[in-house]
C-alpha cells in the first residue's frame, strides 16, 4: 500500500499573511468604499462606533466571499497566470483551512452586524455572501457567459447594506445605487476579460469573449453602459439627490459611454493592442469611486 505523501507545504502551518491574502484586500477596498458611501449618504447617521462596525462587517463579509471563492476555485486559479500565486494554488495553505476561515469569517460578520446595527442589514449581508458564493461562484461562473450579469448583484449589495445599517429601511436611493453597480459590473469585467481572455479560456471559464467572441462582447460592453449611465443619473431628476451629484454623474457617465464607444469601434484581436479596453477598465474603477464620492459630497455639502 503506498504511503500517503505529505509535502512540506502541507505540513507547514499557513502564515497569517496568507489568510489575509485569501480575503482579496484590493477587491475589498471598492466594496468597503461603496458600503461606506451608502452609510454616509443615508439620512440618519448611527453613532460612530456602530457605523464603523457596520463597515467592518461589510469588509469581513467581502473577505469571507474572497476566501470561499478561492477555496472553491483553487484548481482553476492554478491554471491562470493572474491567480496562480494565490495561497492555495501555490501550495502555501490547505483547502480545509481556507474553507473554515471563510465560513467562520462570514458567520462572524453577519452575527456582529445583527448585534451592532439591525437584523435587516445582517440578513442582506448574509444574502450577499450566499449569493456570491453559491449563485455566482458555484453555479453561474463555470456554466454560463452570463455569470457576470447575474453575479454582479453580489457586488451591488454593499451600499444598500450600508444604508440599511444606518436607517433600518430599504428605500429608493439605495435601490438605485444597487442598480448602478449591478449594471456597471458587466462592462467593467468584460473590458478586463477582453484583454485577459486567454487566461479564462485556459481555465475553462465561459467568459463572454471566450464563448461569444470579441465583437459581440464589445457590443455588450457598450449596450450595458447605456442603462448604467441612465441609472447613475436617475437619482437627480427623481429628486433623491442634488445638483452636485447630478452634474458629476452626468459628466462621469458621458465619459464612460464615450470610452465604451471606443471599445465598440476597436477591432483588434491582440491583447497588447487593446488600449481602449484597458482605458475603459481603469476608468470604470475611477468612475465608481468618483460617482459615490459625489453622492456623499452632495449629501453633506448641499
Amino acid at each position, binding site marked *: 500500500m503506498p*504511503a500517503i*505523501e*505529505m*509535502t*512540506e507545504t502541507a*505540513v*507547514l*502551518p*499557513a*502564515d*497569517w499573511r496568507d489568510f489575509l491574502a485569501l480575503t482579496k484586500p484590493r477587491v475589498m477596498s471598492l466594496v468597503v468604499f461603496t458600503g461606506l458611501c451608502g452609510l454616509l449618504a443615508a439620512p440618519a447617521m448611527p*453613532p*460612530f*462606533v*456602530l457605523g464603523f*462596525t457596520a463597515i*467592518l462587517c461589510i469588509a469581513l463579509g467581502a473577505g469571507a466571499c474572497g476566501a470561499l471563492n478561492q477555496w472553491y476555485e483553487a484548481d482553476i486559479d492554478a491554471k491562470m497566470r493572474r491567480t496562480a500565486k494565490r495561497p492555495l494554488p501555490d501550495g502555501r495553505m490547505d483547502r480545509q483551512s481556507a474553507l473554515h476561515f471563510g465560513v467562520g469569517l462570514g458567520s462572524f460578520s453577519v452575527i456582529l452586524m445583527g*448585534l*451592532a446595527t439591525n437584523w435587516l442589514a445582517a440578513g442582506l449581508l448574509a444574502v450577499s455572501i450566499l449569493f456570491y458564493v453559491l449563485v455566482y461562484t458555484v453555479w453561474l461562473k463555470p456554466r454560463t457567459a452570463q455569470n457576470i450579469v447575474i453575479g454582479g448583484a453580489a457586488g451591488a449589495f454593499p451600499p444598500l447594506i450600508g444604508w440599511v445599517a444606518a436607517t433600518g429601511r430599504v428605500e429608493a436611493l439605495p435601490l438605485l445605487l444597487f442598480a448602478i453597480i449591478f449594471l456597471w459590473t458587466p462592462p467593467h469585467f468584460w473590458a478586463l476579460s477582453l484583454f485577459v481572455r486567454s487566461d479564462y479560456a485556459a481555465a475553462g471559464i465561459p467568459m463572454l469573449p471566450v464563448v461569444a467572441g470579441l465583437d459581440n462582447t464589445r457590443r455588450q460592453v457598450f449596450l450595458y453602459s447605456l442603462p448604467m449611465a441612465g441609472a447613475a443619473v436617475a437619482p437627480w431628476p427623481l429628486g433623491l439627490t442634488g445638483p452636485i451629484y447630478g452634474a458629476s454623474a452626468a459628466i462621469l457617465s458621458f465619459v464612460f459611454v464615450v470610452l465604451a464607444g471606443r471599445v465598440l469601434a476597436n477591432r483588434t484581436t491582440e491583447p497588447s493592442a487593446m488600449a481602449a479596453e484597458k482605458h475603459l477598465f481603469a476608468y470604470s474603477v475611477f468612475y465608481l469611486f468618483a460617482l459615490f464620492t459625489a453622492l456623499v459630497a452632495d449629501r453633506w455639502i448641499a
Partner: protein
Amino acid sequence: MPRPDDELVRGRQRGRARVTALLLGAFVVLLFFITIAQASRNW
C-alpha cells in the same frame, strides 16, 4: 516524509498566535464600545 524546520513551524505558530491575540483584544474593545453606544441609544 520531509520534515519542515521546527524553528520555521514555531515561527509560523507564534505569528498566528500573536495576530489572533491582537484580533481578539480588538474585538473585546469593539464589543465594549458597541455596548456603550447601544445602551446610550436606548436611553
